[in-house]
């Protein structure tokens, strides 16, 4: 098919799939879906809108964004899931944000602390219980550098004042106690949770520790959650070009890194969606500049290294060129191995954060084509950044429902689907290769030079597994 034909075919697919809706819903959903087409300048995709009740969605809530994404990886802080047991339990250990340190001493990432509301707490309020709990955790974990309190839905209803409890406890123990009002009913997805969490850092943590001197090459990484060791892989490159990574927000992070996030020469931002708020705030308030970068696949890594090095002196640029020279042949080896096995294979993605656009280049490095992509909780500017990165005819879908995504996949027949665990088993049952692209499917890292060979191997393993051939019955 010509590009034009492809575009037309896919547009027809969209119409067919939307056919199941009543007229009003169809009109609404059509705004969220587009096919990239040179004739449609911008191909506006509506985003960040409410999900319809009664529909199956992949979206999380504010609590998920604040606890699961932003605060969870701060390892030397005890995070209290404040409310009934469910929210904390559900979100426990799902994200593979790795952290070093002795569990229970200076690393509380694998723990779950919940105030486990009972009916009486709902009736009489939970502030007193919260106060006791803060006493207990400070007592039991004297090395904890702080406490965060992440409120769940009922807390927002019963009129508890966790802010004042936090303030009192903070004064009493001379320790940051951070209230985060991330009840799940706030906002329309986890995205507002990121924002609330950023604001909590801004209001209760940033600039509030003992300051440190800023070296000439000190930088921070913002929006890398160290899934499968991603942040470590990125850090390795940055240090090899002569920079010093003093903060990571938030993967394998300490409270001190949050306190002194502004004390760097440059903040590098990977996941713009979840952390742009605080990056912009640091720039406005402290003049700390920030820069977006992308460490997926050698093409994007090269571009990003050069862009980053250009912010510093010549010594850094020289090292940057050497680093590229050193690793590119190794990456070429990877490409030589896998590209013949993956050339021309197509992928459809549905993830969150930055991946629906950032990872496109890595697939292209392997000769693969992204034919459909979309975000769970993106905003307008995310799609504006995404569309230029895509080829003509790529299908773009925002907050896609389970049913829509299945229909799109059935009609576009990609060789691989990349999404979350909730989607994984749907597509594998159809006999479709699948990779979890939130958690890297127990693999990783995928960032940096360290990650690309693993990424390539994993995609090959999924697509070329002999499993898909044997699945048809001989009778």
């Amino acid at each position, binding site marked *: 098919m010509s590009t034009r034909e492809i575009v037309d075919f896919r547009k027809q697919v969209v119409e067919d799939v939307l056919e199941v809706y009543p007229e009003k819903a169809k009109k609404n959903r059509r705004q969220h879906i587009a096919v990239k087409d040179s004739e449609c300048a911008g191909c506006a995709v509506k985003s960040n809108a*409410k999900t319809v009740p*009664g*529909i199956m969605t992949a979206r*999380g809530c*504010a609590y998920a964004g604040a606890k699961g994404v932003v605060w969870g990886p701060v390892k030397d802080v005890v995070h209290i899931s404040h409310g009934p*047991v469910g929210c904390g*339990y*559900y979100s426990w250990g799902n994200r593979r944000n790795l952290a070093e340190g002795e569990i229970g001493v200076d690393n509380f990432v694998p723990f779950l602390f919940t105030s486990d509301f009972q009916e009486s707490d709902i009736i009489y309020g939970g502030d007193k219980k919260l106060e006791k709990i803060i006493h207990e955790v400070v007592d039991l974990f004297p090395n904890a550098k702080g406490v965060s309190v992440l409120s769940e839905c009922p807390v927002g209803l019963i009129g508890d004042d966790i802010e004042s409890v936090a303030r009192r406890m903070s004064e009493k123990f001379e320790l940051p106690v951070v209230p985060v009002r991330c009840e799940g009913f706030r906002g329309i997805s*986890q995205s507002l949770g990121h924002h609330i969490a950023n604001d909590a850092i801004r209001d209760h943590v940033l600039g509030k520790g003992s300051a440190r001197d800023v070296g000439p090459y000190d930088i921070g990484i913002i929006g890398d959650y160290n899934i499968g060791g991603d942040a470590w892989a990125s850090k390795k490159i940055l240090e090899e070009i002569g920079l010093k990574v003093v903060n990571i927000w938030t993967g394998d992070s300490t409270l001190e890194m949050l306190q002194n996030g502004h004390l760097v020469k440059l903040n590098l931002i990977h996941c713009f969606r979840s952390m742009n708020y605080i990056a912009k705030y640091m720039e406005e308030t402290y003049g700390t500049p920030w820069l977006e970068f992308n460490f997926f696949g050698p093409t994007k890594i090269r571009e990003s290294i050069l862009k980053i090095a250009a912010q510093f002196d010549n010594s850094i640029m020289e090292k940057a060129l050497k680093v590229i020279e050193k690793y590119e042949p190794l990456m070429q080896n990877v490409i030589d191995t896998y590209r013949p096995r993956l050339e021309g294979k197509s992928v459809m993605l549905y993830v969150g954060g930055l991946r629906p656009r950032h990872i496109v280049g890595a697939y292209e490095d392997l000769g693969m084509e992204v034919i459909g992509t979309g975000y769970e909780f993106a905003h307008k500017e995310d799609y504006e950044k995404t569309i230029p990165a895509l080829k003509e005819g790529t299908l773009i879908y925002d907050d896609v429902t389970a049913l829509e995504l299945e229909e799109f996949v059935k009609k576009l027949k990609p060789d691989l689907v990349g999404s979350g665990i909730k989607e994984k088993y749907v597509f594998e049952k159809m006999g479709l290769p699948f990779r979890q692209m939130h958690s890297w499917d127990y693999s990783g890292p995928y960032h940096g030079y360290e990650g690309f060979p693993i990424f390539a191997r994993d995609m090959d393993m999924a697509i070329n597994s002999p499993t898909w051939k044997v699945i048809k019955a001989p009778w």
Partner: protein
Amino acid sequence: MINPTQEINTRHYEGNPQKNSPALGATLAYLGVNGLLALLHGSQGCSSFIRLQLSRHYKEPIPLNSTALLEDSVIFGGWEHLKKGIAVAADKYKPQIIGVMSTGLTETYGDDMVSALSSLRKERPDLENMPVVLASTPDYMGSMQEGYQRTVEALLMTLAGHSNSNIHSAPEDSAPSIVLLPGCHLTPGDVDELKEVVMDFGFRPVTIPDLSISLDGHAELEAAPVVQGGTLLEDFQRLPKCKACLSFGLSMEQAGEIIRQAHQIPHLNFPSLTGLAATDALVLTLAELSGKPVPEKLLRQRSRLLDTLADYHGQLGGLKAAIALEMDLLYSLASCLVEVGAEISVALSASQAGIHQLSLPIPIEVGDLETLEERAGQSSLIIANSNGRQAAGALKLPHLRAGLPVFDRVGYPQKRWIGYEGTQQFLFDTLNSLG
């Protein structure tokens, strides 16, 4: 210990809880009913999280819709969201049944689900005959087991008498039917095994809910937002014709009593199906109900189990197991270990459910996995769900995965730990977990 059934955790928080949310248990119960669309009344994070948790455990797609509550509901309540959710789900997915479960959020502002439903039915007369089950499962009351239990009871009370012109009247069977009510301590593999045993005696089982055909992990299924496999709606109408009702796990006793009272059929509860005596009790009951001798196949399995008990009595006798599980599973596995001479060093239940009715040689207490870690030091083995790995790791103890979630071992939902052969498998797994 003055009051052995008191919460032993004097802390005000749960550290690494065992307790799961009742809404997750409700989802599980709903997933065992064919043609049902499960609708969580709460914020959309709850449904996404439950789908994620259950997918991680079962390696299956988990259909669960949400009423997607937003900030407006804090002011106006979730009434309108619920009505809209039911209507949209009914219109779009055309389920046979809709199963609603509430959450901490909606129960806190006291949404009256019954009146919302009747209000919707007034507005939409076409939905008058659509069966809608309403289960109250705020996560500040009990754990997974309670949510499952309340949902099974709600299913029975709503559907057992439901008459729907779309449903053909139940077919007349030649084989006598028997109602089985498996608790959430049984895996889909266990339920499969249970049905097979019942069929070996010539009965046709009516299983409510039936995860053995919806969550058993099989291919060739088109994913759908309604449950595929599981108890048929017609099955609920066959209840009056059943010869007896057998419920499994103490948590299912009340559900069995509902059937007994409604249909005047005998009901027997089996707190456990793991262990020789526990299986003997079921087999004897089936032999009596059917008037048939115990089938050769079961005698052979029993004989193999006896041989295993004899072969490994020394190793089993030396075991000291620290167990933390939801109550029915805790009791099933622990009582089997006691039967073979092992010692139970710690027995922590996720919630109070049944704690006064079931007993082990040591007191059963309610506790989290932090407590497990504090108490299990002198044990030879930990039995807990995958979250117990931290305690096991810190204590350098072997850890047999059981319960939910199990995400770091494969094949758990397919495991059969009930009946003679299943008990043998449980003992093999226990001994092999020692390395």
